[in-house]
């Protein structure tokens, strides 16, 4: 501050992204975002709203107003556990859970999620694991998440891990689908075809 610089406390209209709301609405497969009446029923129904930096109601208002940077770096979108309580409670049928998903996808695509925050790390590792084997393998997934976030937390889970192993609830055997490359039902062929069918980059939906 000594060099005379003073950070601005309010956002100018020029800082907002005028296309953000429409992009998120399209990605969430609906225009209901614009029907929100800001009643706050979503936050009331939400079991994790006490921990959110921005309530779901504010996320919707700020998304509509184009506060892209603030919304995408919020913890709120990663705290959402996808329980759909808000979605079924909303009097205007805004699919809030799907809006949260659209924001998560956008934050990962733009690389702006909070660094070393476990939720997006888990999501990305899960994605990669399933693309490789076709099935989720719980043990390697968790080990990768802890390695990439906070390795010391893994020690705190050692007792539980051992008990799960002893009760036969986790194992070292890698689960994978049988269909091999080029065979009927091969997952790589299917996923490559999905990618080829994707709309051009920069379009409203991924």
């Amino acid at each position, binding site marked *: 501050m000594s060099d005379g610089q003073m950070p601005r406390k309010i956002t100018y209209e020029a800082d907002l992204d005028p296309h953000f709301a429409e992009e998120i609405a399209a990605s969430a497969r609906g225009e209901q975002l614009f029907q929100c009446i800001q009643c706050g029923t979503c936050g009331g129904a939400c*079991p994790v709203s006490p921990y959110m930096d921005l309530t779901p109601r504010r996320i919707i208002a700020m998304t509509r107003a184009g506060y892209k940077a603030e919304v995408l770096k919020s913890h709120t979108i990663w705290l959402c*556990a996808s329980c*759909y309580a808000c979605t079924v409670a909303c009097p205007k049928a805004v699919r809030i859970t799907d809006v949260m998903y659209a924001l998560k996808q956008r934050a990962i695509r733009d690389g702006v999620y909070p660094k070393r925050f476990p939720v997006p790390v888990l999501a990305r590792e899960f994605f990669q694991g*399933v693309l490789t084997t076709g099935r*989720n393998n719980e043990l390697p997934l968790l080990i990768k998440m802890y390695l990439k976030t906070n390795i010391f937390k893994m020690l705190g889970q050692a007792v539980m891990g051992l008990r799960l192993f002893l009760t036969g609830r986790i194992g070292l055997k890698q689960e994978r*689908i049988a269909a091999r490359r080029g065979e009927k039902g091969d997952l790589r062929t299917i996923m490559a075809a999905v990618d080829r069918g994707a709309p051009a980059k920069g379009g409203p939906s991924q």
Partner: protein
Amino acid sequence: MTYLYYPGCSLKGTGRGYEESLLAVFDALQLPWAEVKDWNCCGATAYMAVDEVKAFTLAARNLAIAREQGGETAQVIAPCSACYLVLCKAQHVIHDAPEIGARITDALGAAQLTYGPRVQVRHPLDVLINDVGTERLAAAATAPLRGRRVACYYGCQMVRPYATFDDQYAPTSMDRVLRAMGAETVDWPLKTRCCGGTLTGTIEDVGLRLNYILLREAKKRGADAIATACPLCQFNLECYQDKISAVYGASRLPVLYFSQFMGMALGLSEARLGIQRNFVPLAAAV
């Protein structure tokens, strides 16, 4: 008609007791079943956060295989709440968003699979209530669960937002099934409040608190055990009890799959129902 059993990843891992008990119950009730051949991950909650269309494609591959295996109107049984939701959601999106639907059906075609729009995704509780019925269940209960007070926990994704066989806030199917098996079920308003899903593993203090509230409330309502229908709910409520006790004070409450309770009432052994895999012994309840 044979029910096509879609296990999902958890029922082969941390939720093995759910698979063991549910299939034993299906056998005891003479409900024919076969596993979906070469099934893959449903597309899961975490996957949707990265690439939604690929998540729905994963779900659709399973439905295409089910169609081939069981015909146009094959009935897929999805016991895991997350799998049930994702399979239902994929069907809705493929139907409601034709451009996404075309992309997915084309991609399946590239691997010689045909999507089955009329395949039915069903939860086992739907089958037990509507195809078997409580009268037949009660008649089959040779060792009824007398004196047991159970809090039936439905969690979130099984009833919201797609289930049509039960209410989104105040479901009763599990209560009706376990009452038919001779148990008493307690009135428990938190029965569809979220357990936090993977938050216990990612932001532990938030996850622990959500589960502490559920356990405390179940006890307050006089339950001596909780019945669940989801491998993640069961894992959170049961396996984290030591950690919850360390933060919020001692708390022990057995958490079983509803199918484990059913198997007991049907006279099946605890080993066959995978009850020995649970961390909190059932004896702790009584």
